[in-house]
């Protein structure tokens, strides 16, 4: 149910999946929790009983590595069962380690980075041609913005004034092998995206009120410009021994670490 879309419960679901599936990419999912919670709870228009309803708003996870956060929300929405979560990565199951559009509720196949942004921009462009005001939300990673097609999509969205498009950059300052600043510096990201005719706001990506206010504010003043939120997040947020520890892009939970992580969530 929507009212159980609370960060603690979403993180609990993520840890549960990651432990039972013995999966990687925990840090990439934990930083997205508040962003997903606010969008699903307060902004996304969808048919609760039919996630594929054509008149829905679209929520696209371009940064496919964070997909456990979306699964965790879909569990709270009743779109996935507890059994499905506990069987994560089992032989013959459907939920993969990256976003796969054949799972109802996920919109794109991503993980190879720089794809979801263009597909989402295409969806937003299609809605504009049809003259309907369905919204498109796209979550991209800051590391993902290394990819050239992201910038092709951003320039196209700005040029075509896709005002019902909101891009959220999950700026956790890490990518697979290092800090983003050490690989491709993004100090000037806000100005860069603004220069493509976007309205851009920067928020604390773990402060739900700030995220909520920014989405409302950007929507009200959109005026033929697409919107972007740069959400400053902490990779591995919520579990102290994972926070800003890039090895949790790759590490798996054993029983002891799982127990320790759950205790932290209850604090």
């Amino acid at each position, binding site marked *: 149910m929507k009212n159980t879309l609370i960060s603690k419960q979403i993180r609990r679901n993520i840890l549960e999946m990651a432990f039972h599936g013995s999966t990687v990419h925990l840090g990439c999912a934990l930083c997205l929790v508040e962003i997903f919670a606010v969008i699903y709870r307060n902004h996304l228009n969808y048919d609760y009983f039919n996630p594929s309803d054509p008149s829905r708003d679209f929520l696209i996870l371009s940064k496919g590595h964070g997909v456990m956060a979306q699964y965790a929300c879909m569990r709270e929405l009743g779109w996935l069962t507890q059994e499905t979560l506990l069987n994560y990565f089992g032989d013959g199951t459907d939920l993969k380690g990256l976003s796969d559009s054949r799972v109802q509720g996920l919109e794109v196949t991503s993980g190879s980075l720089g*794809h979801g942004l263009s597909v989402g921009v295409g*969806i937003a462009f299609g809605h504009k041609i049809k003259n309907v005001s369905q919204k498109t939300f796209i979550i991209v990673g800051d590391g993902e913005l290394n990819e050239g097609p992201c910038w092709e999509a951003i320039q196209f969205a700005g040029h075509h004034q896709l005002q019902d498009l909101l891009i959220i950059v999950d700026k956790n300052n890490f990518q697979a092998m290092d800090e983003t600043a050490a690989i491709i510096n993004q100090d000037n990201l806000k100005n860069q995206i603004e220069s493509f005719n976007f309205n851009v706001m920067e928020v604390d990506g773990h402060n739900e009120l700030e995220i909520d206010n920014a989405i409302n504010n950007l929507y009200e003043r959109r005026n033929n410009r697409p919107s972007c939120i740069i959400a400053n997040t902490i990779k591995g947020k919520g579990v102290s021994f994972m926070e800003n520890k890039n090895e949790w892009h790759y590490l798996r939970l054993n029983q002891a670490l799982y127990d320790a992580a759950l205790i932290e969530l209850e604090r």
Partner: protein
Amino acid sequence: MRDTFSSKLVDLAHSDPKLLLLTGDHGYGLFNSLREARPQQFINMGIAEQNMVGVAAGLSRVGFKPIVYGLSAFIPIRVLEQIKLDVCHDNLPVIFIGDGAGFVYSHLGTSHQSTEDIAVTRAIPNLIVMSPGDRFELARCIDLAYDSNLPVYIRLGKADRGDVHSKNLIFNLGDLIHLKEPDPSDTRVTLVATGSMLKMASLLCESFPSLGLVSAPSLKPINARHIKDLCEKNHTIITLEEHSIYGGLGSIISDVAASMSHATVKKLGIQDRFSEHCGSYEYLLSEHKIDFESLKVEIYNCIYSSEQAAG
């Protein structure tokens, strides 16, 4: 062929407002009729092919039927991953037109030449691959592609070689089109050609009257029964394509013929290398030994060795 493409496009756009033509800033002049008749259905996506394919996938997800146009060096080669993931993974109805395939841009060099596109596209699940040889085949391919509501790649090669057929065609996906049976009393060798090499093949048949001639405008799916029939009727099948001998028509026919013990497949096409020199289209065909004279020698040798084998 380009006029046929242009007029088919206008007809389809009139009959289906969901059709959108997307181009990566290519096709100067080709879309004048469409832009005049249905300007809202033409979108120049800029020189950004990867985004163009992603946007096409998004548009098709909300009900549109995009036709993505580019040079085949870019569509599909540059954007192969977008075609695979964004479009084919979900079986979305997007048509890709790869123009100028083979050595059409003979003077421009390797960046604009495309001799590997059939090989890579046919390995992508859900993707239909077509390679029409003249205006009549093109018109039928476009209809088949549009009506399929599936992802399709249509390869367009050298477009000014002239027609081989003389009237509108009805063939199905995968069909081989028999243009001429081999002389049964002679060596039983048939030439199977696709795309721009169809006209070349028909000219070669004038030099070798005993040759059979078959066109393969639809490369994936391909009707295995048709290939098996061909193997049974022939001692040797010669494939001819303006594409690498690795993974193209020759490989497609060989895949099926491998189960036929008595038929030999001789693959004529582009060997495993890039063009070395600049020159006319005809020059590049000769550099790669798929010009008329080189092919004549190859076919002569093939017929001669078939005769010897037949005893």
